[in-house]
């Protein structure tokens, strides 16, 4: 009887001692798991894009991430460039950083971004292009890269926000245009008056597809 009592008492004590430990172990484990998943989730792109022209190919497709109250976006693109007068068709890769300070509700599920701006770096995959001039040249023979181009742009966009009940794969579709120019054009424009904005400013248009995402609004 005494043994039984002791056994019961120890069991209860044991449970009291153990329970918080197990509970907290479970908790921190789950928390860690959750945190880990959240971190990995952040790597899932929030949108994809399709862009026509813009110095990065005839047509470019890519994915991107928005953050900072959706004001900042980082995109990567793969662009396709037909051969035209050159020897072969080419592919390009672009890393693009966007800043979209305002998003104005225009009613009827539409919203409007009066300004988007940013810069992007583009590299072209072709053996005739180099990052810096090859060793065959005397030192600093050509002091620029034919392979790597930097562009800056300003633009605008109109988004259609798909009503909640109609959402399947996408939350919103944005149509945008951009006016861009690239580093070598800026160098060319410097100290000369013959080149006019129509020569070195170029237009591009595109579409952005925001993925349906429970992280939206974070």
């Amino acid at each position, binding site marked *: 009887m005494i043994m039984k009592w002791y056994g019961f008492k120890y069991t209860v004590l044991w449970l009291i001692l153990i329970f918080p430990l197990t509970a907290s172990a479970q908790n921190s484990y789950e928390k860690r798991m959750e945190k880990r998943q959240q971190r990995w989730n952040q790597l899932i792109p929030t949108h994809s894009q399709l862009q026509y*022209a813009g*110095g990065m190919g005839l047509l470019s497709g890519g994915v991107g991430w928005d953050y900072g109250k959706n004001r900042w976006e980082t995109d990567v693109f793969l662009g396709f460039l037909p051969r035209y007068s*050159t020897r072969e068709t*080419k592919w390009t890769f672009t890393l693009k950083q966007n800043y979209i300070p305002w998003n104005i509700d225009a009613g009827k599920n539409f919203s409007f971004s009066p300004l988007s701006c940013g810069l992007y770096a583009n590299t072209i995959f072709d053996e005739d292009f180099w990052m810096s001039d090859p060793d065959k040249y005397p030192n600093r023979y*050509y002091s620029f890269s034919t392979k790597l181009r930097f562009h800056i742009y300003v*633009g605008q966009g109109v988004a259609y926000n798909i009503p909640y009940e109609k959402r399947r794969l996408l939350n919103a579709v944005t149509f945008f245009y951009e006016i861009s120019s690239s580093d070598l054009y800026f160098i060319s424009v410097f100290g*000369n008056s013959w080149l006019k904005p129509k*020569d070195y400013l170029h237009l591009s248009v595109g579409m952005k597809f925001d993925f349906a995402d429970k992280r939206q609004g974070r």
Partner: protein
Amino acid sequence: MKMIMKNLFILLTVLLLCACNDLFEYHPYDGRISGETGINAKNTARIENTCAGKTHISFIMTGDTQRRYDETEDFVKSVNRRDDIDFVIHGGDISDFGLTKEFMWMRDIMNGLKIPYVVLIGNHDCLANGKEIYRGIFGEENFSFLAGDCKFVCLNTNSLEYDYSHPVPDFTFIENSIGERRAGHERTVIAVHAPPLSEQFDNNVSVIFQHFIKRFPALQFCLNAHEHGISVKDRFDDGVIYYGSPSIEKRQYLLFTLTPEGYDYEVVRF
């Protein structure tokens, strides 16, 4: 805030309209050629026509226009004010970075000339896919034409840009050109971008090159660009003078006159 956005919208719309000319660009090196092509073939035909039978031939040697659009425009205007010149030789480097549009911009400026012009290929014109753009707009890298009794042989000498994938200078072309006996061909002028013994030239063959060009009927002299300053050099101590043209930014050009007795040249400022 609303006001700022409205203004911004107007500003960007104006920018958009400004960009309407060559609206979309696929890539600075996209190789999309628009406008006139085959410049050298058309202009050498014009030169041969207008100079046929003439005993005095006046021509300008210039080059290295690169991204000097204003100076090139001024050059064109100043040449157009004269009526005593038969044609212009552009010694190459019509582009600076080899960008597709650079070739077209300079072509459009040079097309303002009333007299015909030809453009040699320079080392800057070989950058990235520039060789193909040069070919597309101006034509073959090696070409010749007859002005009066003088044959002008224009040669690609940018060996450093070609990695042995292509014969530069092209001795087969030179040999064939020596062998080609055109009626009325009495004397010869050689024009190149990079002269022999310069860092662009394949100097393993510079002496051979010199031997080859001296086989042309009555070689008068050679013309080169590339070195950006006026130069008069007997590069091989054999009496064959290489005249180096100033780059366009110097606002000078060389004016040559071929006469039945020989030739004269002067430096002209514009």
